[in-house]
């Protein structure tokens, strides 16, 4: 009977590895931008196209930079999480509307609420390229000196906020 148990044994080891594998994210490729200064830009804001914003204006603050778009369905998923976060007020969120019609984006904010202090508009996606955006939504955590400290790919979840982003924010704010 012993030799007939071998397949079962191998399978149990395999299940162990698969279980660990579930906790790992194959897409969590370290971004080359982490530890580097946030790429500069000067973009018009959604609420008032005449007004411009650049990362230099935010020096001295720890802030989240959230890339989103009205056409992106998974952005709708994180929208509520971001709204809650903005109400708590622990960290300011700046948005970037990526390759989008400003009117559509404003309509989304009017309808579902606006978690952003300001949203800049990246019509042609040029700034997105500098930030290495390859899928929307993406979120960057930028420290007081304008250095990118963390990058989150995909929708922000309550779990990722509590476990990774907020502890890091606290640490950086000190």
């Amino acid at each position, binding site marked *: 009977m012993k030799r007939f148990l071998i*397949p079962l044994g191998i*399978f149990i080891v395999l299940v162990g590895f698969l279980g660990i594998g*579930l906790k790992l994210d*194959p*897409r969590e490729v370290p971004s080359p931008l982490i530890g580097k200064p946030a790429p500069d830009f000067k973009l018009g804001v959604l609420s008032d196209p005449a007004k411009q914003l650049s990362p230099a204006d935010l020096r001295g603050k720890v802030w989240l930079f959230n890339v989103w778009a009205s056409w992106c369905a998974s952005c709708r998923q994180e929208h509520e999480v971001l709204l809650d976060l903005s109400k708590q007020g622990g960290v300011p969120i700046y948005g970037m509307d990526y390759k989008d019609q400003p009117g559509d984006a404003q309509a989304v904010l009017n309808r579902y609420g606006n978690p952003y202090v300001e949203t800049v508009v990246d019509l042609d996606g040029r700034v997105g390229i500098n930030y290495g955006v390859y899928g929307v939504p993406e979120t960057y955590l930028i420290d007081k000196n304008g250095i990118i400290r963390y990058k989150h790919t995909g929708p922000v979840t309550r779990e990722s906020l509590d476990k990774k982003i907020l502890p890091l924010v606290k640490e950086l704010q000190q």
Partner: protein
Amino acid sequence: MIPELGNFSLMLALMLALTQSILPLAGAARNNAAWMSVARPAARAQFLFVAIAFGCLAYSFLVNDFSVLNVVQHSFSKLPPIYRFTATWGSHEGSLLLWTFILALWTLAVTLFSRHLPDDMVARVIGVMGLVSCGLLLFMLITSNPFLRLLPAAMDGSDLNPLLQDPGMVIHPPILYMGYVGFSVAFAFALAALISGKLDASWARWSRPWTTAAWSFLTLGIMMGSWWAYYELGWGGWWFWDPTENASLMPWLVGTALIHSLAVTEKRGTFKAWTVFLAIGAFSLSLLGTFLVRSGVLSSVHSFATDPARGLFILAFLAVVIGGSLLLFAFRASQVGLGGRFALVSRESFLMANNILLLTACGAVLLGTLYPLFLDALNLGKISVGPPYFNSVFVPLVTPLLLLIGVGPMARWKQASVPELAARLKWGFGASVVVALLLPLTLGAWKPMVSLGILLALWIVISIAINVQGRLRGGGGWSANFYGMNLAHFGVAVAVIGVTMVSAYETERNVRMNVGDTITLKGYTFLFKGAQDVDGPNYKAARGTLEVSSNGKPVTTLYPEKRTYTASGMPFTESAIDYGFTRDLYTAMGEPLDGGAWSVRLFHKPFVVWIWIGAVLMALGGAMSITDRRYRSRKKGRAGA
């Protein structure tokens, strides 16, 4: 309303699946005929309700019901209706529902074509399939419900992945799933045999046609996937060793081993425990494939949105189904006696070698697929295993396998005579070697791999001819099984030619073309006439025009496109191909350059369609052998009689 009906049908289907598994299994154990007789009606009712659920989801997609989350995420109002329909299984939830639907379909088939089987066997087979179905339905209802509402409803959807907006996607997933899920029948037969303790030749005969049917579907499904990747991904390759492709290749390899091993168990009563193990293995690998693709453990072009809760559920499901059956196997297989003895040179030995090689190949693919995960889990870094590993492992394993195709079918059972085999095959082998050495010289460069490929293909074809001729001369009549086998083996030879030629002689050019530029590739001249803007239903495209001529005579005009889908903003390459029996001309647009110029990819691919023709022949061979008379004309035997 309709989505709620679908949701309700899923719950009813779950109740029916529970009934379908518990009562018949208990009935078979206690020899209670009334309980066992529940199996068929319960399975048919379960099929009905899963079908209703599937219909409800398809309906929600077709009428653009953007209050259903799944529709919002995977469809778009301007999507053509056929793709709105196929979007039904374009999502994680939808493809699970398709999986379950096809499982119910196979179960329905078992209820219809099992009249010649003993009642307890039928009850156990249907019961085991019901258990699998329970797991899937629970999975859907708990973590992946396709009918979740989005309130307030969205204005429009975010469109189906452009890769999936293709005619190939209409049939590729259903056919592939028919194969994957079809192995559940062989699995259920094996478990039924283990539970009853009657591991004789009869269960092998019963499960043979089912296994072959599933295998044929899987072969076709993999072939379509490979063809789809060829024309849709725009890279001109036909196999990428992507984790998802590997996930379908592994059950195919084990399934192929199973078909051969079932033959031995049926005819000679040997390999009994081994065959049961393979039947468990083929379905387990189908489940493992589903896990790998659905859980996001491995990154792949095919991966869907990932969710840890889902991954955990599939893993638990996997552990119960596979772990449970392997445990049962460990207890029961040791009680199985040895079958008939056989000599070192015999058909049994050749088939054993076939099994070992196929299983080793499967192990190599499994290792290559999971190796990045192992390293990552042990904190040894992130790596990816690519084609060089797979190619260098696969060729040495496949070569002896293909040589065996020539000898195996001609060897006698129990004991074969080496001099007799040599006498029948020596001229064929000699001729294959001579042609294989000389033929590549006429094709340009002599390459050892080309000679090897041609040798293997010719050897298979000649040995089939010798075998068929021997049967005709010996007065053997029509046997669907015999000719089906030879047709499938012939398909292997055709595919080998395709793989060999395209790997050795394909030509690729990646060039900048101004309007009016020409490039000549293997005697074909491509004239670039510029790119125009075209509007599709849900995309905008730049469509290039390439006039192809050969020796001044026009061959065809190709229109490759670079598309941008409006809803998702995703760019997409639509290649244009001129198919031919001995060569494909493959063109794809790269990036726009200044002044109306484009970077363009041009390929000349000799014999590439042979790969898929070969796969179709293999599937046809399988289908043919199922029609063999001896699978049908069996009298019904009572349990225990």
